């Protein structure tokens, strides 16, 4: 298959990243996507940034707790420990 740059533009590609990462693309679409990524450093960077973004979002649940809530939860824990 002969790849023309016009086959899939960068502007179109950025809209397809989640579809690509979710493995929901038709096989020929996937070929077009990957062919573009191979020759386009800008879109490679964009794809990698989306992966980094997803990883960073995945780390989000670590937040500090206010002392009142912590005490309440610790009371639940101690109660559970006492009663099994």
């Amino acid at each position, binding site marked *: 298959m002969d790849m023309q740059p016009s086959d899939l533009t*960068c502007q179109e590609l950025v809209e397809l990243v*989640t579809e690509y990462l979710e493995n929901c693309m038709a096989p020929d679409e996937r070929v077009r996507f990957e062919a573009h990524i191979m020759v386009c450093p800008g879109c490679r960077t*964009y794809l*990698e940034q989306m992966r980094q973004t997803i990883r*960073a979002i*995945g780390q989000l*649940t670590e*937040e500090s707790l206010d002392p009142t809530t*912590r005490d309440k939860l610790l009371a*639940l824990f101690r109660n559970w420990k006492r009663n099994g």
Partner: protein
Amino acid sequence: MGAGAVRETTHDTGHGGGDETQFISALRAGDEPAFVELIDRYHAGMVRLASVFVRDAAVAEEVVQEAWVGVLRGLHRFDARSSLKHWISTILINRAKTRAVRERRSIPFSALTVDTGFELFEPSVERERFQSDDADQWRGGWVSFPQDWTNAPDEQLLSQETHNHIHACIDALPASQRDVVWLRDVHGLTAGETCSLLRISEVNQRVLLHRGRAKVRLALELYLAGK
């Protein structure tokens, strides 16, 4: 949705394998510091997750406390087929749904409100960053490539300040995008689980997820560029 629901392999599991096993043993043994670590890590996120189903902040807080009781009682049967984080989220979602039904609200708010999460086309990257249609060549190509983030070390991506920034960005998303990003990327639910919880189609789910992620990426790009 069972605790052993299939998880997508790419998602972060919090603690890695052996480490998590030890952590769970400590919890089962009633180790208080381990519990403190657990609530520090998950409680705030759980409250947000509960708010997908119950509007009232105090009720969400209550539901999460109920879920913690459920977690403690269920610890002995947790079998590590799913990650701890995913298992806890499942318990919480079940409680939150029960509570929502009791309050005659079984559909998440985002499904009830018309917001701009899906109706309008929102480009993932601003149009000005691509060559216009009347350009001589490279129509739709980058005007200048995005700066790669390898110079921003992972530590910066993982810093508390960056986290706060990402958090604020997710909070500012339209509700439907926020819920999907929250369930999929923060809590590690699968696409199928997310669709059935939010009662949306696979395609909607994916579009909402993409738009949410794209906005967070853009916010990170500006942030890392010091803008």
